[in-house]
């Protein structure tokens, strides 16, 4: 059995609104990453990004025995961050996920937005977040780079799996009280493998080509990714236990919001019928407000970071 079973969500598992929403979010973030990467793109960078995408795809074939006949393999978001820096890593991981979906049906096409979000955005943001913090604390010593690699590998897998579980729960495919502990529990363990492999691989690269790894740490802090990373982790830490301690809570929300009825009702009835009466409910209103809040905060963070960076170059 493959251990990354649900890290690549197939088509049919996500409701149409969920798929659409994550397509929009991922597309926006990738376009933003594209702008940032283009800005710092020297001409050597393109072949490197193409080759790294191919290498991470190939490295995912390197499996290792976990226990009782199951095996795990690398996902690679953290390694991509360590070797390429955050913005290029988003693009490289996005390319890997796109090829897996388009060519190998590893993850669906309508679900591609969600998969991109989990692996290319959340995975990368989490990794960068950890790598930055630990290297600040450890002053970019060797142990700090290794510890950062381990932490980044672990957290990227763990948080990405929680986000995937939430997406499944909101779509009504898997109840939150089953999906969250199951996905989170399994991936907390798989993440250890990812973390150790990331650290070992980073160690090899650090020994042979220290400048490649150190280059990424030398760069000035990327506040926006930092912020998004912190926000996401805090949100999940608060939200995940809440969702799983109220059995079927999320599913109930999804039903109230009309996610599950979209299939039964014509699309054009969705907005007048469901959004306004639903808001009357306190829990629902809180969550809707929460989602809107996160979107706004993220937008503001991204905009500020952009304003700041363009201001500096002018």
């Amino acid at each position, binding site marked *: 059995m493959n251990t990354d079973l649900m890290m690549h969500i*197939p088509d049919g598992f996500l409701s149409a609104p969920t798929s659409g929403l994550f397509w929009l979010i991922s597309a926006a973030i990738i376009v933003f990453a594209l702008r940032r990467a283009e800005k710092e793109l020297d001409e050597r960078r393109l072949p490197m990004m193409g*080759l790294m995408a191919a290498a991470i795809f190939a490295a995912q*074939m390197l499996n290792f025995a976990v226990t009782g006949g199951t095996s795990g393999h690398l996902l690679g978001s953290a390694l991509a961050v360590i070797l390429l820096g955050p913005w290029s890593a988003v693009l490289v991981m996005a390319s890997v996920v796109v090829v897996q979906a388009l060519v190998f049906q590893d993850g669906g096409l309508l679900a591609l937005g969600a998969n991109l979000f989990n692996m290319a955005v959340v995975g990368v943001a989490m990794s960068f977040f950890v790598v930055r913090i630990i290297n600040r604390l450890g002053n970019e010593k060797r142990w700090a780079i290794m510890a950062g690699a381990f932490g980044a590998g672990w957290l990227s897998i763990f948080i990405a799996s929680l986000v995937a579980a939430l997406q499944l729960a909101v779509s009504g495919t898997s109840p939150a009280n089953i999906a969250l502990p199951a996905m989170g529990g399994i991936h907390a363990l798989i993440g250890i493998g990812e973390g*150790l492999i990331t650290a070992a691989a980073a160690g090899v690269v650090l020994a042979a080509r220290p400048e490649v790894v150190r280059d990424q740490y030398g760069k000035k802090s990327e506040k926006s990714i930092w912020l998004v990373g912190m926000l996401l982790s805090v949100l999940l830490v608060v939200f995940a236990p809440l969702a799983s301690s109220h059995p079927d809570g999320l599913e109930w929300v999804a039903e109230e919001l009309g996610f599950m009825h979209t299939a039964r009702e014509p699309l054009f009835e969705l907005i007048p019928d469901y959004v306004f009466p639903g808001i009357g409910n306190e829990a629902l209103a809180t969550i809707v407000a929460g989602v809107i809040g996160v979107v706004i905060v993220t937008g503001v963070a991204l905009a500020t970071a952009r304003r700041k960076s363009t201001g500096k170059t002018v």
Partner: protein
Amino acid sequence: MSGGQFHLDPYIEVHSCIHAADARLKLSALLIFMLSTALLPAGAWAAYILLAAVLFSSMLLSQIPFGLLLRRSFVLELPLVLVVLPLLFKPGGSELLHLQAAGQSLVMTSDGLLRFSSILLKMGLSIQAAVLLSAVTRFEDVLVGLSGLGYPKLLNAILALMWRYMFILAAEARRMLAARTARSGRPAYAGSKGGGFFWGVRVTGGMAGTLLLRSLERAERVYQAMKARGYDGEVRALEARQLSAGEKRKIVAMAMVALLLLLAARQVYRG
């Protein structure tokens, strides 16, 4: 991944009208097919059968052995069935079956069964359609199609480079795995000595690091080679051919049929 097969590229070279069609036409058809599958109501069996009929006839037209295409999607679907299994026991509707296991009683419900089978069917149709597309379309053509559909140039260039070197690096990864097996025996069965989890992880980490390191060095050589051939930081690609009026009409026609199917299904299976 495609489970250790030596032939990674799923494209199968045969002559058929489906192979010959423009990649953009096929991509649009796939997208329309998947969207209609996703938006169909749960339990709209007649509509599912219609979609399956369309898919199966395309599979037959493609001249690729039918069983091969079915097998490819079946391998992908099998583990996913387990994931949706709990849906069977979702409360709601009439109770169909009582199960007693380990002191816990599970009740299979009609609502659960409906949701379970609908999700499985939708997933099966989508995966099968995607399997067909990758068997009848070269990825190079998909790339041209994507750039014609507005996929960013830089991402397209990364994908093109990735595709070109993916198989070389995959073969390298496979050689590393073979070398590890040759030197260590088969690690970590229950009860076997050596090759525990930490050993495996350390060795695999070293392999991944080596693979990345070699790829970095290869990237430098690739850059030199590109430079020698006049690369100046700008990626130039041939412009994609304009779609003919006939092809555009085909896309619109497919979309209209799908829309009609959706509207009809919503009328019939409403509430």
